[in-house]
C-alpha cells in the first residue's frame, strides 16, 4: 500500500518537473534565438532551416550595430534621464510615504484613497494637456518632460514605501521625539536607514520603467542627438530596411543589458517589490 502511494508521488513529481522544464525551455527559446541571431554572419541569418548555433561567431556585429548610430550619445542621454528620474522618485515618494505612514492629520485617509485611485487613471487622459503644458514652457525636445514629473512622487511607490514604513515600530519615532528630534530628523535618521531595501525596490523599478520607456521619448524628443536608446532602436528598423536582423538583435541586446545586469544583482528587490504590491493591493 505504502509502495503504491510512494510511486504515485514520484509520478506526480516527474510530471511537475517535466512541465516546468518544458515551459522554461519555451520561455528561453526567444532569448536564445536573440543571442544566436546577434552573432551570426549576415547571410547566415537567412538560412532555412535556421542554425541554432552559428558556425562562426561574429562579435563584430555588436560594434557594427553600435557605430551605425551614435549609440554612445543615446546611452548617455538615457542614463541621464534615468538617473535623474530615480533620484526624483526616491526623494519625493519617500517624503510623501513618510507623511502617510507616520504623521496624523485630518483628511489623511481620504487623501490616501485619492493617491491609490490615481493608479487606476490611464495616463492617456492626461497625456495631451501635459504635452501642451510642456510645449508652453518650451520644454519640448528637452529631457525635462521626462524627468521633472518624477519629482512629484508616484502613487505606486508611495503605496509601496508606506507599506514598509508602517512595519517599523512607532515607538522609535516617539523615543526620537523625546530626544528632541524633528519630524525631518525622524525621516532621515530612522525611517530612511531602516528601509533601504524598499528604497532599492523603488530605484530599480523607476530605472526599468524609465530605461524602457518608449511613448514619453517618442512624444517629446525630436532632434537626432537627443534620442534615447529605445527611440533610436525603434528607428533602427526603418534605417536598415528591416533586413539586418543580426545587427538589430545585437543592438537590442546592448539596450537590454543594463536591465539584465541589474536584475541578476538585485533579484531579491525585484521579487519583493512585485510581491508587496501584488499581495497587499
Amino acid at each position, binding site marked *: 500500500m505504502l509502495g503504491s502511494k510512494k510511486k504515485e508521488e514520484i509520478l506526480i513529481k516527474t510530471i511537475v518537473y517535466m512541465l516546468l522544464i518544458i515551459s522554461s525551455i519555451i520561455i528561453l527559446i526567444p532569448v536564445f534565438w536573440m543571442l544566436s541571431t546577434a552573432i551570426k554572419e549576415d547571410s547566415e541569418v*537567412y538560412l*532555412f532551416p535556421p542554425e541554432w548555433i552559428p558556425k562562426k561567431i561574429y562579435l563584430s556585429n555588436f560594434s557594427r550595430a553600435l557605430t551605425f548610430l551614435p549609440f554612445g550619445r543615446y546611452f548617455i542621454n538615457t542614463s541621464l534621464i534615468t538617473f535623474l528620474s530615480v533620484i526624483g522618485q526616491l526623494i519625493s515618494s519617500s517624503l510623501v510615504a*513618510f507623511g502617510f505612514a507616520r*504623521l496624523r492629520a*485630518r483628511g489623511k485617509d481620504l487623501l490616501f484613497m485619492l493617491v491609490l485611485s*490615481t493608479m487606476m487613471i490611464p495616463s492617456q487622459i492626461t497625456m495631451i*494637456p501635459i504635452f501642451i503644458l510642456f510645449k508652453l514652457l518650451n520644454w519640448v525636445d528637452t529631457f525635462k518632460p521626462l524627468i521633472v514629473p518624477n519629482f512629484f512622487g508616484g502613487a505606486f511607490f*508611495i503605496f509601496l514605501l508606506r507599506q514598509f514604513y508602517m512595519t517599523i515600530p512607532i515607538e522609535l519615532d516617539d523615543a526620537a521625539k523625546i530626544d528632541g528630534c524633528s519630524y525631518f530628523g525622524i525621516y532621515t535618521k530612522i525611517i530612511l536607514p531602516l528601509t533601504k531595501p524598499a528604497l532599492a525596490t523603488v530605484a530599480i523599478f523607476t530605472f526599468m520603467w524609465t530605461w524602457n520607456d518608449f*511613448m514619453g521619448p517618442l512624444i517629446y524628443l525630436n532632434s537626432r542627438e537627443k534620442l534615447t536608446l529605445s527611440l533610436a532602436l525603434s528607428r533602427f528598423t526603418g534605417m536598415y530596411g528591416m533586413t539586418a536582423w543580426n545587427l538589430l538583435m545585437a543592438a537590442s541586446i546592448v539596450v537590454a543589458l543594463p536591465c539584465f545586469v541589474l536584475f541578476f544583482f538585485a533579484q531579491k528587490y525585484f521579487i519583493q517589490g512585485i*510581491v508587496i504590491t501584488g499581495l497587499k493591493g
Partner: protein
Amino acid sequence: MRTNISAISKKEERYFYLFISPWIIGFLIFIIGPIIASLYFSFCNYDVVTPPVWTGLQNYKKLFSDPLFWRALKVTSYYSLLSVPLGIILSLIIAILLNQKIRGLVWFRTIYYVPSVISGVAVSLLWMWIFNPEFGILNFLLWKLFRIHGPAWLMSEEWVIPALIIMSFWGIGGDIVIYLAGLQGIPTELYEAAEIDGANSWKKFINITIPMMSPILLFTLVMGIIGSFQVFTQAYVMTRGGPHYASLFYVLYIYQNAFQFFNMGYASALSWILFIIILLLTLLIFKSSPLWVYYESTRER
C-alpha cells in the same frame, strides 16, 4: 495639558501636509489640471497652433460614426479578452507547479521572470523576428514539430492579434511571482484539515486554493485589463496598426490623432472614452467581486 496635545497635533498636521506637498502639487499639475483640460479640449477643435475652438459635442458625434474608432475598440477588446484571462490561467498553473515543494525553485522563478526584464522596444523587435514568416523561429518550429505551415503572423489581418497575444504570454513572470507568494501564504492546516475530511486534489484546489487566492486574482485581473487597454509600444513598433488596421490598438489611435494629425480635441474625446471604459470595467469587476472574491475578515464577522 489638553491644549498642549492639540498644539502638537496641529504641528504634526502641518508637517503631514509639508511632507506630502510634492504629491499634492504633482496631483494638481499632472493629474487634476490635465483631466479638466482634457475634458475641455474634448469639446473643442484644437490643433495646438491656433487656440482651441469650442465645438460642443461634435467630437463625440464624429467618434460614433468613425469606423476606425470602432475598429480600435474591437481590436483592443479582442486582445484584452484573450490575453488577460489566458495569461492569468497560465501564470496560476505555473505558480501551482512551482509550489509543489520542488528543487531549483529560485532558478525556475528567475527563468520565468527574465522576459519581463527586457521590455519595450527590444522585446518588440525580438518578436518581429520570431514571427518572421519565412526565417522566424516560430514557423520553423511549427513545421519541424507539427508539420504545420505557420501563418504570416504580423502580416496577416487574421493572425496579427493572436500573435501579439502569444507574445504577451512571454511577460507573465510578474504574475507568476505574485501568485507563488500568494500560494505560499495559504496556511497548510487548511489542506491538512481537508485531507482528513477526504478531499481530493481537485476539491482542495476548488475549495481552498481558488478562494484563498481570489483577492490576488482580482488585483491582477484589474491591473491586467487596465494594462491591456493601454498597449502601445508593440503596436507602434511592430505593426503600426496594420495590416489594414487589424492591429489598430486604441492608444495607438489616440497617439496618431494627437501627435500625427494634431487633432488634439478629437484625441482628447477618444481618451475620455477610454477613461470611461476602464472606469466602468474596474467598477464592474469590483462590484461583482463579493460574488467570487473571498475575504477572510468577512468570514469572521
